[in-house]
């Protein structure tokens, strides 16, 4: 017993959790938790405010890392072996099929959740000063998520993989001058083959996850450094009234002397109230419980889905047999649909403009207003761009048949 107690005490150097001191120390003295503040604002924990989408994205990344490492034990990135290794995972490796399903579905889910997270941050105006830079980091993380999924798409080396990457890289090659060179660099040649497979493998397993991990750290760090999670806009409004009062009253005027704008006044009032501890609660247990619930819910959904639905694996890649139509991965089908109207505009100009616009957004939109009800136009435009992409993806997935001609999904294929 004594040894056990000593072991425990040597590992966790804190007071028991039943004491407030212990709860504070839990955050402070644990490497993995100390990115959290000791206390958080009550309102930031509301599920309806953030949906915990950022956390869920991160959890999915963790699931993907864990399952990805497990899969790496069995997978050899060479055209002669890759497909057979997929079959081995399905038929001969203990839990191999489940692990691959979990990896595949989590990758799809991550794209969806990351985009939803971005949408939430936009709608609540959380990208505005002083969080502009973190928004830009977030956009880069979105691009990395897409690239990770895209590079992983090739690895099973089936027809789906081969032609999706062939189409995807060809779209990229529409960019003038740089496009074809980039394509060749990525593929290690002019078409998808062994060289492309090893390049995609290294990108997928080392380069991109490494970049992702680094940028994720920056992203989290900046949340703290930019003042914690952004307050809900409604709260800002409420405090705005208080701030106005403060500014108009004599004492308040003195307090805020030298400040420049209403927003700063609001921040100051909120900081003052927070300092009085009015809406602050301890991270443990309130925040950690909720984050844990988000983690467990994510796991539960992804594992259940993986238990029920198998990840697709088509016949082995065959460069001599072009499926018609050959489709890009679903998240690039919007781009492919635009390419069918104009290769350069749809395939290069529009996606590049969208990424650039997203990166520059917080610097272009200098309106400090955060309440969605006062930013209807901005939200409409943002929603429409997302919706347009979604519509294009739906069209590309279900309404495009042979020769990229329009088909009705219920008319049935000639099979």
């Amino acid at each position, binding site marked *: 017993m004594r040894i056990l107690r000593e072991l425990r005490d040597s590992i966790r150097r804190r007071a028991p959790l039943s004491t407030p001191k212990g709860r504070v120390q839990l955050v402070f003295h644990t490497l993995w938790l100390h990115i959290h503040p000791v206390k958080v604002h009550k309102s930031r924990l509301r599920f309806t405010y953030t949906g915990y989408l950022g956390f869920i994205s991160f959890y999915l990344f963790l699931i993907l890392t864990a399952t990805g490492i497990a899969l790496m034990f069995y997978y050899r990135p060479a055209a*002669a072996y890759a497909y*057979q290794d997929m*079959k*081995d995972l*399905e*038929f*001969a490796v*203990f*839990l191999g*099929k*489940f692990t691959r399903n979990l990896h595949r579905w989590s990758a799809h889910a991550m794209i969806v959740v990351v985009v939803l997270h971005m949408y939430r941050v936009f709608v609540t105006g959380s990208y505005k000063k002083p969080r502009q830079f973190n928004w830009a980091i977030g956009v880069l993380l979105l691009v990395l998520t897409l690239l990770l999924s895209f590079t992983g798409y090739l690895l099973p080396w*089936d*027809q789906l993989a081969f032609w999706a990457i062939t189409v995807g890289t060809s779209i990229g090659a529409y960019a003038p001058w740089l496009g074809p060179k980039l394509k060749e660099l990525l593929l290690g040649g002019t078409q998808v083959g062994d060289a492309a497979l090893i390049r995609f493998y290294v990108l997928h397993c080392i380069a991109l996850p490494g970049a992702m991990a680094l940028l994720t750290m920056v992203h989290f760090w900046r949340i703290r450094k930019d003042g914690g999670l952004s307050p809900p806009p409604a709260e800002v409004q409420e405090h705005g009234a208080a701030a106005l009062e403060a500014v108009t009253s004599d004492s308040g005027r003195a307090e805020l002397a030298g400040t420049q704008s209403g927003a700063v006044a609001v921040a100051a009032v909120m900081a003052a109230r927070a300092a009085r501890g009015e809406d602050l609660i301890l991270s443990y*247990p*309130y925040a950690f*419980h*909720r984050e*844990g*619930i988000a983690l*467990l*819910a994510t*796991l*539960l959904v992804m*594992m*259940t889905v*993986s*238990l029920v639905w198998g990840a697709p*694996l*088509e*016949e082995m890649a065959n460069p*001599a047999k072009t499926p018609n139509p050959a489709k890009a991965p679903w998240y690039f089908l919007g781009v492919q649909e635009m390419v069918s109207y104009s290769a350069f505009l749809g395939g290069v100009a529009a996606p590049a403009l969208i990424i650039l616009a997203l990166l520059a957004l917080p610097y272009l939109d200098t309106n400090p207003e955060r309440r969605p009800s006062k930013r209807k136009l901005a939200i409409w435009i943002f929603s429409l761009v997302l919706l347009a992409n979604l519509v294009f993806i739906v069209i590309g997935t279900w309404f495009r048949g042979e020769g990229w001609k329009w088909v009705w999904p219920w008319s049935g294929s000639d099979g």
Partner: protein
Amino acid sequence: MDKRAQQVFALLSLAVLAVTLAAIVEAGRPPWKAYQRAFYRLAASRERDATRRQRLLREPLEIKQILLPGLGRVDRCPTCHLGVEDPDLADAPHPFRFHPGLEPHRVERFGCTVCHGGQGLATEKTAAHGPVQNWLQPRLPRRYLRASCACCHTEGEIPGVPELGVARQIFATRGCPGCHRLNSFGNTIGPELSDEARRERTPEWLEQHFRDPRSMTPPSPMPDFRFTQPEIEALTLWVLSLTTEPMAAYYRSVPVIPSASEGRRLAARANCLHCHAIQGAAGSLACNLAGMATRRSARYIERQLEEPEPIGTRAAMLAFGFSQPACRAIRAFLEVATAADARTLLDNASALADGGETLVELGRRRTLHFGCVGCHGGDLKGGVKNPNSQGGAVPALIHLADDYTREEAATIIRRGKTPALEDPAKPAPPLYMPSWKKILAEEDIERILAYAWSLRPKESEAW
């Protein structure tokens, strides 16, 4: 403090644990384990010795597989089909029954899927046997199993499967290469056939297609060749054997089996029939090879091939420097060689090197070999329908000499030609003259034209 969150957290923990356990249980109970357990129980019930019976019941359950690295195949079929090589299990129920008549195709050399088709990597019944999505080679129905013979036996007669010889003969003489490419020979109007067995065509589909091509692929320009039922069955079998998987090359490269087809190839290369005859066909300088395999022992024949010795008063055969596997292969060929073989061997030899035939005769052979007759008809008399081309059919070539100079005709062969439309409003005719310049040598064109010129009907001279 925060009771509800705690409760939800606990509940979710339990749910995640449950799903994890479900995944582990599911992964730990694959259906093949049940089969193996049943097999060992069956084997134990037939075992009299008590200790051996106990040992059988304690056999570990494991995936059993045959690796064929040369073919990149892994056959996991023996995981369930455990009695394939045990004659005592001849009366056992499936999937444990003994496989009679395996020799010489031993399991450890050939696995199962090389002949049977199916997905060797799979360990579930449906996935292994098919048909399943995304696996192009389902298990062949028993009736068509013999098709697989031709995957490795790519040349010559195949013992027990005369249909495959028939089908090859049809392909070589009825003009199929005129439209279809097979192993880089032939033109490209129709689909390439080299990998046709891996295109998810069922035998029924193929049979119906040969009966009436347009009923299966509506716009098909393939002419109706009016195949007989036996011909249709032969062609179906043969198409089911067409694969680019290098099985034949692989099994030839590992000379374990004295393969008759390899022997035939060697006999052609060494030009054996220059001197020897088979049942009276071909040369007369040396002994008749027919029945040789029954007259002489295998060892004698193989030794003679390796180091020829004088026989009686005759001089020794030339030493061709055959390797031992080559000698065994040639001996295997002699066991099955027929007069027809001798004639085709001779034909092939003369198709490559002129054997004194006239230019016209050489040209005639080439119209068969390259498939001109597929569209222009036997003896180039025309007759294949080609809707909306002028005249509604592919032109006969017997009047070629009246309409063109040789140079003009040669140009058309080299470049190809799209037929003129009869009615510009209707769709273009399905058949057209493809370009031949990459396939035909100049002298081949010359020979074909010499033949075509010779076909000019006599009365046309009255013009």
